[in-house]
């Protein structure tokens, strides 16, 4: 790669200047990142298949709506900064796309830090907080991979109750359930009974023992129906499930991290990065809260708005487009 960069040095230099100008617009170009941008664009321009673009990245996504939406948000934000982007959405499960990012066929994919760590990178990790999980990721990721800044937005397990229950018992965090849990049925997927962050975790972390456990599905139609129906009074629901908006549910805060952090985080192929890309994605993540993501998920899943409309709306509202 080094010799190729030298051979096409002229083009690389031009590309570097262009990039430096763009980076200057976004007002933070460090010397180390601009040199990495030069090598990235250099290798790009020497590749006859790259179409001679200055910088080109491939954004992938897993096969579920929220992930495709996040990939679209990243793609539009980068396009607004003049980065050439192509997308490969709806790829499949992590086992399929992860090796592709490791090889560089995909340069950016929206991930969730907790699952990324325990499913792909370090299965034995017990890190729970956002900081611990990100530190573990930084230490254990293969050399070609990197995670950028985590967004505050989390798509994690949560103990969720109806708005009516929350109002009646003044519930804000899982800890507030202490006086009430003994009279509540808890709905969750069957494995919650034996999972370390399941029944046992809630007892160890918050001292909660529920009246009964009702095995249902993974934050799916049965769990949500049981919660509405009053068959269960609390349930394990993912924090960005659109029904939280439409059915008026309240996800209780988890201040003691019974559930591991699941912040949205871009997993990237290091050699394809440059300062513009990194700064742009970090700026997007800084504005991406769970509430914002939940509203976007609701628009896409419940109201059937297109990914690009919803993504554009978010970026415009946050001044990122």
């Amino acid at each position: 790669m080094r010799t190729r960069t030298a051979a096409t040095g002229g083009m690389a230099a031009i590309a570097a200047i262009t990039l430096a100008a763009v980076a200057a617009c976004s007002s933070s170009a460090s010397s180390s990142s601009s040199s990495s941008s030069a090598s990235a664009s250099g290798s790009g321009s020497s590749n006859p298949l790259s179409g001679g673009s200055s910088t080109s990245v491939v954004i992938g996504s897993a096969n579920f709506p929220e992930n495709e939406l996040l990939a679209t948000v990243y793609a539009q934000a980068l396009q607004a900064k003049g980065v050439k982007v192509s997308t490969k959405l709806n790829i499949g499960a992590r086992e399929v796309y992860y090796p592709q990012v490791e090889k560089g066929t995909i340069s950016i994919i929206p991930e969730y830090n907790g699952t990324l760590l325990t499913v792909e990178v370090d299965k034995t990790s017990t890190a729970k907080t956002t900081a611990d999980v990100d530190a573990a990721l930084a230490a254990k990721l293969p050399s070609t991979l990197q995670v950028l800044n985590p967004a505050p937005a989390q798509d994690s397990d949560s103990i969720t109750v109806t708005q009516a229950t929350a109002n009646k018992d003044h519930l804000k965090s899982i800890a507030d359930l202490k006086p009430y849990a003994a009279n509540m049925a808890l709905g969750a997927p069957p494995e919650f009974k034996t999972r370390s962050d399941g029944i046992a975790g809630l007892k160890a972390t918050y001292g909660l023992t529920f009246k009964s456990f009702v095995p249902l599905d993974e934050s799916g139609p049965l769990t949500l129906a049981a919660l509405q129906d009053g068959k269960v009074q609390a349930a394990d629901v993912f924090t960005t499930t659109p029904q939280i908006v439409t059915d008026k549910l309240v996800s209780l805060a988890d201040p003691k991290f019974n559930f591991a952090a699941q912040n949205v985080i871009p997993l990237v192929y290091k050699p394809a990065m440059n300062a513009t890309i990194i700064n742009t994605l970090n700026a997007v993540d800084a504005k991406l809260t769970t509430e914002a993501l939940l509203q976007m998920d609701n628009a896409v899943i419940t109201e059937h708005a297109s990914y690009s409309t919803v993504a554009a709306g978010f970026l415009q509202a946050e001044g990122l487009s």
Partner: protein
Amino acid sequence: MSFFSYAWDWVTTSANWHGSDSIPQQILAHLGYCILPLLIAALIAIPAGVVIGHTGRGAAFVVNVANSWRAIPTLGLLILLAVYLGFSILTWLLPLVVLAIPPILINTYEGVAGVDPDVKDAARGMGMTSWKQVTRVELPIALPLVLVGLRTSAIFVVATATIAAYIGLGGLGRFIIDGLASNEYGPVAGGALLVVVLAVLVLALFAVLSRLVVPVGLRRQAKAQQD
């Protein structure tokens, strides 16, 4: 390890036979989820089958509806009802009743409609009322087929009542679904084995039942035809 060694190890672990949610409790719960739907299906399908078999009216329509009815996915119906009806007794009862009706209905109809016309004629000639023709002649002759229908439905229901576990209820499906969810193969294989054992017991029960209730003459006739 094979399916059977997984299943055997789990079934023979004595801890699985004691306490709450143990094997005996779930077998009882499972039978509970089977008996009610079968009773209801029989109460609907046997009279309906007799009426259309005796009169011959609407036979093509009812049989076709009953057959196409078999295409309704039981699990899909269960989840649909859970979402739109909530979690009442109907949520699990209705899909199993829907599953159990067609075999009983069709076999009863075939049995009654297939009674030898000479026999029917004789019954009428003796001055029997319609009610007597049905209860004294046609239904007893149709009984072997009615039992076949009941047996088929019973096996369907025993095997399918596992879906009650999908909506948080008990029964042998609990072992299968929980085992799958937590990647434990023992309860999955063991639960499936117990369902098979229950189904075989149901077969045996119906063999005994048909010996007890089918008239001796009919059985002799059937045997003579076989030989």
